[in-house]
């Protein structure tokens, strides 16, 4: 019936850009196993995963933003601001309401809402006021960082002791020995992958990033989809903060520092195109794991100084982008 079925079909060759992140991850794990027997221990693995969950959750949202041709530099500061605000309000409520579960629930709701609202502000200014995403989020990055410093009065905002004890399990407990941040990260990653690959929203993101004009001519609501990517990212920042606050119970001017760059790096290492048009959430997850494993490996071995962590991560990022360029659009 169709020409496609009668025409000789070439076997799809293994695309280097598709498998490169997985290969890199496997190589890292093998190196880790060779260098330190404790590397694959339950404690170490859960530790790495739980620590990478915050960046990971944010990077899932970043995947959508970048796929749709956007960028958000403000997420690290946004996380710090949301965390600071959450702690401040929870402390105030503890004084007036006397603490307990309702305070935690209000705090969580506040964090989610503030993240969503912050993402909405970014998105609305980028889509309606037509401000370049890079510039706008550079601006909001400074604003949120400054706001959290101001809220903390230059110091550290700490959750009250009683509340901290009550809230602690959200980071440290879990089910079947897997802590909540890992579970949430995994669930969100699976959901994100499904949304990216199997829903109209994901398809529209890729179409807009690939060629905005084609998307518009195809009656895709370009501005609304763009806006939604930033709202989604903001909400995920809120979720990451909900997981992060019980870990240390505090927020300061240095909370979430450089998270935006780590998230963007993870997205790019995972094979999503920086210029947009193609993105994959599972790649981002692999990217996050690669970045945290490098740090973990350097800590576990005395082979290379852990101070060189940044340098090695930098090399990996550059390699990832070079691979992308050599193999063209990955799929």
């Amino acid at each position, binding site marked *: 019936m169709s020409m496609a079925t009668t*025409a000789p079909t070439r076997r799809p060759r293994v695309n280097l850009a598709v498998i490169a992140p997985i290969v890199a991850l496997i190589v890292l794990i093998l190196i880790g196993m060779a260098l330190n027997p404790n590397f694959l221990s339950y404690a170490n693995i859960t530790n790495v995963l739980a620590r990478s969950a915050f960046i990971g959750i944010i990077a899932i949202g970043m995947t959508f933003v970048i796929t749709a041709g956007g960028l958000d530099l403000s997420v690290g500061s946004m996380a710090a601001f949301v965390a600071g605000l959450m702690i401040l309000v929870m402390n105030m409520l503890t004084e007036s309401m006397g603490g307990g579960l309702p305070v935690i629930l209000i705090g969580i709701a506040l964090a989610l809402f503030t993240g969503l609202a912050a993402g909405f502000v970014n998105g609305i200014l980028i889509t309606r006021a037509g401000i370049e995403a890079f510039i706008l989020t550079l601006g909001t990055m400074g604003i949120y960082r400054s706001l959290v410093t101001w809220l903390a009065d230059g110091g550290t905002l700490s959750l009250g002791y009683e509340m901290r004890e009550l809230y602690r399990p959200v980071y440290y407990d879990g089910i079947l020995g897997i802590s909540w941040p890992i579970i949430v990260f995994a669930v969100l990653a699976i959901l994100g992958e499904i949304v990216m690959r199997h829903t*109209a929203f994901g398809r529209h993101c890729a179409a807009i990033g690939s060629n905005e004009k*084609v998307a518009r001519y*195809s009656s895709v609501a370009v501005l609304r989809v763009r806006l939604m990517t930033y709202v989604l990212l903001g909400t995920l920042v809120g979720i990451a903060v909900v997981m992060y606050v019980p870990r240390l119970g505090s927020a300061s001017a240095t909370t979430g520092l450089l998270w935006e760059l780590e998230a963007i790096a993870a997205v790019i290492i995972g094979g999503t195109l920086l210029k947009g048009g193609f993105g994959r959430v599972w790649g981002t997850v692999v990217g996050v794991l690669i970045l945290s494993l490098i740090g973990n490996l350097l800590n576990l071995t005395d082979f290379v100084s852990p101070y060189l962590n940044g340098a090695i991560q930098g090399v990996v990022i550059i390699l990832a982008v070079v691979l992308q360029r050599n193999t063209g659009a990955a799929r």
Partner: protein
Amino acid sequence: MTDPILALTGVTKSFGPIEILHGVDFALHPGEVHALIGENGAGKSTTMKILAGYLDPTGGQVTWQGKPMSFSGSEQAEDLGIIMIHQEFNLAEHLSVDQNVFLGRELRRGFLLDHKAMRAQTADLLGQLQCRVDPATPVNRISVPDKQMVEIAKALSRKARVLIMDEPTAVLTERETEVLFAQIERLRAEGVAILYTSHKLGEVKRIADRVTVLRDGTMVRSDLTADVSEDDMAAAMVGRELSDLFPPKPAHGAEPILEAQGITVPGVVHDASLTLHRGEVLGIGGLVGSGRTELAEAIAGLRPRSGTVRLKGQDLPANHVATAMRAGLVYLTEDRKGAGLLLDKTLRENLTLGQLDRFGSPLIDRKREEAALDSAIADFAIRAPERGMAVGDLSGGNQQKLLLAKTLLSDPQVVIIDEPTRGIDIGTKQQIYALIARLAAEGRSIIVISSEMPELIGLASRVVVMHAGRIVGELADAAVTEGNIVRLAMGLDGHEKDSAA
């Protein structure tokens, strides 16, 4: 007569399997203005680009001062003094006028740029062109006619021996055109060979010494301008026989389906109205840039506009393409690669992009998508070597068929097709013509926008013609002839008399 300075002998040019220039002989003589005219797609641009070293001929010979020549590129041609002024401006928008004029050939004093000298010389050149632009102004702040003048100044500043001008007056006012003509006459007197193209036949008659007509990549005639009238030129440009390339036109009903009233898009379309009936194929003719595309995009909700569009009695809002599509009106863009298809995506992703909500919610049903692609491949005879290939690797004809399939996926009542067959081979053209006739026979209403006169005449039973943003005339049935359309499109007839007439 003097010997030609630059000549083509039996030049052919193919892009892929399609030959678009068939053995063109063409010669430019010093001190002569030679006009090259023809319809869009006749091969003028290709001929000019071969002369200016931008393209290599596939066959035949380029001769420079009597010797065979093979340019390594446009730089070598420019070094010899062959300067081409492009229709699309070749200016760095953020640089100032003088920086543009001397781009790549900056004057220096020692290691440093000699801004003063460049500015003075630019001012001098612009003075000759009676253009009152300050050389220090960035190019993105000056008007379109001024940009054209800057391009001309740039060409003048090089010691041109051959000057190739691709429709230089398209964006100029009458007064500016006069200034340009004075410069052309001055250059001619200095012995420069000038190649000039224009759709304005009155200008050709006035300024050119010799006129050559191209049609479908073949040179049809070349005469001294004094020996041919404007009507002769138009006849030579279009005079081709209509074969049975086109299916018979189906009869259409009298029931109006689409009514557009007083459509205005600021700066490009002025107060255009048209009515489309059930089962009708309506043509829109006119030159590129006459506002045809903008009118269609305004009707389809892709541009801000004033005026009303009514589809089967329902008012369609401006600038809201999704509503128009849902109501049953779709627009197939002329810009296949820029606005029609995602070149890095697969056939399936392109086909369903505008209609994803019909393929399942919240999750897209991949099987239904594949089934839709199966029927599109069968219905539109799309030939794709691989199902999963990127659309950018398909041939132009197959891309166009896929774009048609994508546009028609919503089962629209009204289809506006802009340049249905641009850049595709004759076989695919015929398939697309048959498809258009079939759509009309099914009771759908079609608007075909085309620069190819035979296409309009072969497909449409009624043609409206646009000139300079206005609808200047409507032709029906027997009056739909190439001569009539060309005369209207050139502004020779109609409500708006052009001074060239």
